[in-house]
Structures are given as structure tokens and as C-alpha cells.
């Protein structure tokens, strides 16, 4: 199967059940942008280099996620509205292990 199902809550609290391809090397931030779940210019501003925090998400399901690299940790230690569930969407590559992942897009800074 080349898609996984994700449940994404946008910044207005609306829930979106979407399909994300696993064979396009896309990350969570890009999936959110491709479905236009957050306005352009308010997400993925740095292009996905973990250099802004505009794609911060709260991962609310118990999926095993790739470990944070230094750049993501550093950004999340400076960003606003950070909780223990915070991750940068741009650092989470969509794989079949993410089937059923649930997340909320963090508020805009």
C-alpha cells in the first residue's frame, strides 16, 4: 500500500482525515501544506530545514517516531507553545509506520 491514513487537527480545531503517500519522501509539514490545512506562509516557512518552528505539531497518538536530531531539539528549545508532544512536522518523514498517526498543528507564533 502506498498511502497511510492520518488524522490532523488544524489550527481552528477542525479534524481532517487524510491519506498521505509513503513513496514520495514527503514529511508531515509537506503533507499538511499539500492539503492546505494551514495557510501558505504560516507553515514550512524555512522550507523544512528545522530553522523556523512554523510547522510545529503536537503528536497525540502513541506512534514511534524518528528520534529528534540536534537541529530540531535546538529549535524546539527556543520556539513558543512547546509541549512534550511537540515535534517539527518537517522532520517527520511519512512512512508506513505512521498509519493512523494523529496530530494537531500548533498555533501560529
Amino acid at each position: 500500500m502506498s498511502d497511510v491514513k492520518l488524522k490532523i487537527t488544524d489550527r481552528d480545531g477542525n479534524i481532517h482525515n487524510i491519506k498521505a503517500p509513503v513513496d514520495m519522501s514527503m514529511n508531515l509539514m509537506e503533507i499538511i501544506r499539500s492539503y492546505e490545512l494551514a495557510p501558505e506562509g504560516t507553515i514550512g516557512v524555512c522550507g523544512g530545514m528545522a530553522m523556523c518552528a512554523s510547522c510545529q505539531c503536537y503528536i497525540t497518538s502513541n506512534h514511534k517516531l524518528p528520534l529528534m536530531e540536534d537541529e530540531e531539539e535546538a529549535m524546539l528549545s527556543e520556539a513558543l507553545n512547546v509541549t512534550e508532544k511537540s515535534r517539527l512536522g518537517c522532520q517527520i518523514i511519512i512512512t508506513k509506520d505512521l498509519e493512523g498517526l494523529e496530530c494537531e498543528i500548533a498555533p501560529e507564533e
Partner: protein
Amino acid sequence: MIKTDILIIGAGPTGLFTVFEAGLLKLRCHLIDALPQPGGQCSEIYPKKPIYDIPAYPEILAGDLTKKLLEQIKQFEPSYTLGERAEEIIKDKEGMFTVTTNKGTKHQAPVVAIAGGLGSFEPRKPQLDNLAKYEEKGVEYIIKDPEIYRNKKVVIAGGGDSALDWSIFLANINADVHLVHRRNEFRGALDSVEKVKELKNQNKINIITPAEVIELKGNKKLNSVVVSHNEGKKEIKVDHFIPLFGLSPKLGPIANWGLDIEKNAIKVDTYDYQTNIPGIFAIGDINTYPGKLKLILCGFHEATLMCQSAYKIINPGKKYILKYTTVSGIDGFDGSRKEAPKSVVQAINE
């Protein structure tokens, strides 16, 4: 007053390449950038990262791309206003634009090209009531003159390199430093982390973690901050509160220039990337149009087309036709000339 033909706002790759295309049309350029050096994101954010989609460069570091662009435009003698942010634009009756920076430098040109990328990088501000009230009255996001903190009580918030580095620096000039961070661990260069630990052990830096500044108190100026941490709330008397939470890109004052904005970008006509205000163009990552892709190579294309229209605005009625650099060579404003070597032809005499 700095006068030029095309005033370029933003000295990233698109802005720099504009100088080249304008130069071919004998148009001079001046660039304004809020950052202290040219290159935009390529030199400020990711100079050591490779780019793989610049045509004919299988791989080039962003910093090297900047260097090569600077080399390519050198003969067109661009001038710069660096470390200043374009703040205000006024168009006079003759259609001439005057752009003033935050430091008051004035620039005049018949054509303005906004190549501002993500916008200007502004300090990320904590969400605190009354924050604006105390800005420059005890709250500073950027340390301009470290000397003003000598022997003063300072609370620094943040957990990255800049929070660590400034804590060390200010502790060393006898400031009474409290470093407040939301997490227990700090992430910074190994040296800085070690140094902060050492200063903490010498009681020269007071570290409060995991904690957050939640309230600012004062009258005309900041007097104290309230910090929330494990053991409850604590009020700390301060002279200065310095939140150091990194930088975040903002469209900034350009958003108030009367330009059509869509999706946090400037709407343009794809004929020549002109905005709704004739004479103001927007090129590179800062513009939007149907099908827009934020790629450096698209910025180069947009800059090239834009310069053709700029020529017509600056030289109304003056004929020109596109020439190829291989055929015509390049005449720099510095008197230099580059051209293809002539091939040597010789007849065989028998």
C-alpha cells in the same frame, strides 16, 4: 540620498542576480538588506548546506553560491545598504520612489525590486502581557551595547547558543545574571555549556530551570519579572529582561506598503513580476502567482524578465533587443570587458 536605477530590497541570490541582468541593460543597482552581509538565507541560515538544483552545479554550498554570484556581478559595481531594514516607501508625482530604512538612510530610484525572500528576520517574542510597554525600557531582544549591562541585574530567557553566550559575556562584565529556561537541559556549543556550568558553580550565573518568565512588572520602566518554576512563583528584581528565543521571518514593514498580499506573499503579474503598484516589482520567494515555486532558479528567471520591464520604465521609447553574452560579451561599469576569445583562422598556402 542614494540614487540608483533599480533599488533592490533583499540581497539574497535573486536580488544579487538582478544586478547582473540589470547590468547587461546598463542599469545600475543598489541593494538594501537587513542582514549585515549579502547572500540572504544562503549566507545567514544555511551557508554550509548543499543545494542540488542550481542548473549546471550538481552540488554547491549555499555560501559558495553567494560567493559566485558576488563574483559574477562585481563588474556592475553594485552598492549596498546593509544591516538596515527598508521601512517606508513614497512615490512622488514623477513616479520616483524614495525608500527609507529603519536607520533613516534614504534611497531614490525609478524602479524598486523587492527580493525580500522570507521577509526580514525579527526576534521571536515571548507571549507576555505588557511586553510592548517595556520594550526599550528594560526589555531588549537584541544586545546592541553590552556595556549598558555592566553591574546590572539581568534576566536572560532562552536555551540556545545566544542565551548561553550572552549569559557568559554579561556574567564576565559583572552583571548579575539569571538564566531562565523552559527545559532542564541547554543546547549549545559544548564550550558554552561547560563555561556556563563553571560560572554557575562560581555563583556568577544563577540558572533557573525548568522555568518561564510569566509576568513583567514596573512603572515607567521594568522593575521585576515573575518566574514560574517547580517550586512555584518567584519575583526577581531586574534592570533588564532579555528574551533570546531566536529569529523568525516576518514580511515586516513591506506589508504596509499598499501592495496586494496573498498567502503572506506579494501578488505579481507573471508578465514581468510587477506588483499592483507600477514600478514596484517583487521577485523570488517573496512573490506569489498561480503555479509559483519558491526556488532559487525561479527567482533568477523572474529577475531576468523583470529587468526588461525596468529598462522600459527607465528608458521610455529607447530601443533594445536581447543580446547573448557569448556574442556580445560583457562591458562592466568598472571599465572591464569580458568576451569570447576570437577563433584563430589560418589559410593553407600551397
